């Protein structure tokens, strides 16, 4: 491949504000309601304040408004609702990576010199749809004639197939994957905006209390893994993936405000820069050359991001990665070079990705516990890393190490799309 020049941003870009709405089941809230909460909270995080008239363009990540609420063309709806019309508003779609891509478009728009201040966000309304339709809707992100129509695969099924390939290659077990769920629920218990603001131990206690109240036999689980091995408590969705291997169905929105570095100090003295923005694509996983035990678009985006930032994987202090399923977090930490291929599952089970480890992964609770309103996930990751870098993540703040470099990894589908960003406190 001929590369004419080293990739890089045309000028420095910073993040000056960011927030996520409460994530959870809010079936009566529309995309507008969810986005308004995230937007107003994001404005409130700007240290020196911002006149909303400073916002020059809007990029909104949204996957399936047409199906979930019969609403397409969401860009102008959101711009008007936030009082930002006639600013140009663009809806960006890349399945579960929609707002990772929206953020990237905002960064590129500022880096180009076209705008100084741009809003990037994402939203998905999901729980108002009948549950039996949700798998069908999400399958729109797959290779529909083959993966859905021919093979009758659901999204849990696609990742479950990748899991068996991974297990056959590397010998990892379901219990290794369960350790990812235990860790992310533990982290989510410290995130007041998470859909599951509870540890698995809390969930186990709730279930036991519920059984006792109804006069049923009270389950006696020895520990979290024992609970997750209980087929009644944690049923199979797509073997070998069970319910607690899967991220939930969630309503939510998130919002980040980016500014040219040269104007960022008008809004804050505590500046976080976007030092790398990378994105890659891949065909359906049947086209991947190196098997399906890792995601090639994530490897390419990761490599390009490190090159752009001038750093190596070991320089990254912490990361928010796309754990739509437990196996996805394992593959992510390998694809990003934090662990060698085949070692991620064992590293997770050994606690090497825990909140107090050398490289904490998904301190927000990840998609697993924080929730996964698909179009909102990318900028929700960005605002978490931004808050952690500024020491403002509340009870779940990483305190055992200095934080300089944080990374986000946002995947669409089974890896057809991947966006990786590196943020740096400057």
């Amino acid at each position, binding site marked *: 491949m001929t590369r004419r020049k080293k990739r890089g941003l045309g000028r420095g870009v910073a993040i000056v504000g960011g927030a996520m709405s409460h994530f959870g089941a809010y079936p009566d809230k529309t995309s507008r309601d969810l986005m308004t909460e995230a937007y107003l909270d994001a404005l409130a995080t700007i240290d020196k304040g911002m006149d909303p008239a400073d916002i020059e363009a809007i990029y909104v990540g949204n996957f399936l408004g047409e199906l979930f609420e019969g609403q397409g063309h969401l860009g102008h709806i959101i711009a008007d609702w936030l009082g930002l019309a006639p600013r140009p508003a663009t809806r960006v779609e890349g399945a579960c990576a929609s707002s990772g891509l929206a953020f990237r478009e905002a960064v590129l728009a500022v880096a180009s010199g076209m705008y100084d201040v741009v809003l990037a966000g994402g939203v998905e309304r999901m729980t108002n749809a009948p549950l*039996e*339709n949700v*798998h*069908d809707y999400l*399958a729109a992100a797959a*290779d529909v*004639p*083959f*993966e*859905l*129509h*021919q*093979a*009758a*695969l*659901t999204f*849990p*099924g696609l990742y*479950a*197939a*990748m*899991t*068996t*390939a991974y*297990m*056959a290659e590397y010998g990892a077990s379901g219990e290794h994957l369960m350790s990812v769920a235990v860790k992310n629920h533990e982290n989510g218990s410290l995130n007041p905006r998470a859909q599951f603001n509870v540890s698995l131990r809390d969930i186990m206690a709730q279930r036991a209390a519920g059984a006792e109240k109804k006069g049923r036999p009270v389950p006696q689980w020895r520990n979290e893994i024992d609970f997750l091995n209980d087929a009644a408590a944690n*049923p*199979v*969705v*797509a*073997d*070998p*993936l069970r319910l607690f291997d899967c991220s939930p169905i969630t309503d939510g929105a998130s919002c980040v405000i980016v500014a040219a570095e040269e104007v960022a100090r008008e809004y804050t003295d505590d500046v976080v820069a976007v030092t790398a923005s990378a994105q890659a694509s891949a*065909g*359906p*996983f*049947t*086209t991947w050359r190196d*098997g*399906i035990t890792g995601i090639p678009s994530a490897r390419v985006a990761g490599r390009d991001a490190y090159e752009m930032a001038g750093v190596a994987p070991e320089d990254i202090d912490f990361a928010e990665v796309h754990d739509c399923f437990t196996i996805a977090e394992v593959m992510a930490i390998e694809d990003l070079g934090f662990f060698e291929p085949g070692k991620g599952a064992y590293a997770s089970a050994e606690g090497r990705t825990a909140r107090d480890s050398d490289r904490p992964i998904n301190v927000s609770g990840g998609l697993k516990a924080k929730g996964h309103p698909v179009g909102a996930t990318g900028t929700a990751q960005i605002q978490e890393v931004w808050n952690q870098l500024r020491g403002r993540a509340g009870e779940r703040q990483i305190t055992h190490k200095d934080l300089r470099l944080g990374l986000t990894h946002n995947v669409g589908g089974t890896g057809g799309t991947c966006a990786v960003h590196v943020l740096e406190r400057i």
Partner: protein
Amino acid sequence: MASSQNPVLGIALYLDALAERRLAASRCGSCGQVFLPPRPICSTCRGRGMSAEELSGRGRVAAVTSIAIPPSAMAAKGYGRRRPYVTGVVTLEEGPSLTARIDLPEHLGGSLQDRVGMPVTAAFEDEEGSVTLIFRPA
């Protein structure tokens, strides 16, 4: 360039062949890579000299799962938690992989990953008036 002599290499050609119980693919005249479904542009060398080709249907299981919570079309056929079905990825001996259902009736639950590498062959079943591709143990 497509002409009346050369069928358009694409999904419709694949589905038409499937209805006749054949697996349609294409081969790149420049690098030899085989693609299923047939496609017009080689994703390996970007060559456009593709020709249609038929595959044997022999291959090995590359990945496999058993679905307990099915999409609505499968739920309507009676599949679900009480009647899961097996599906996954098969790599054909000519090179390409495809996603398709796999009939492993003796295996529902248990260690699915042990089936990775198992030889299988394509079967074409009539299901509700159309031909469905299902791989069976070879």
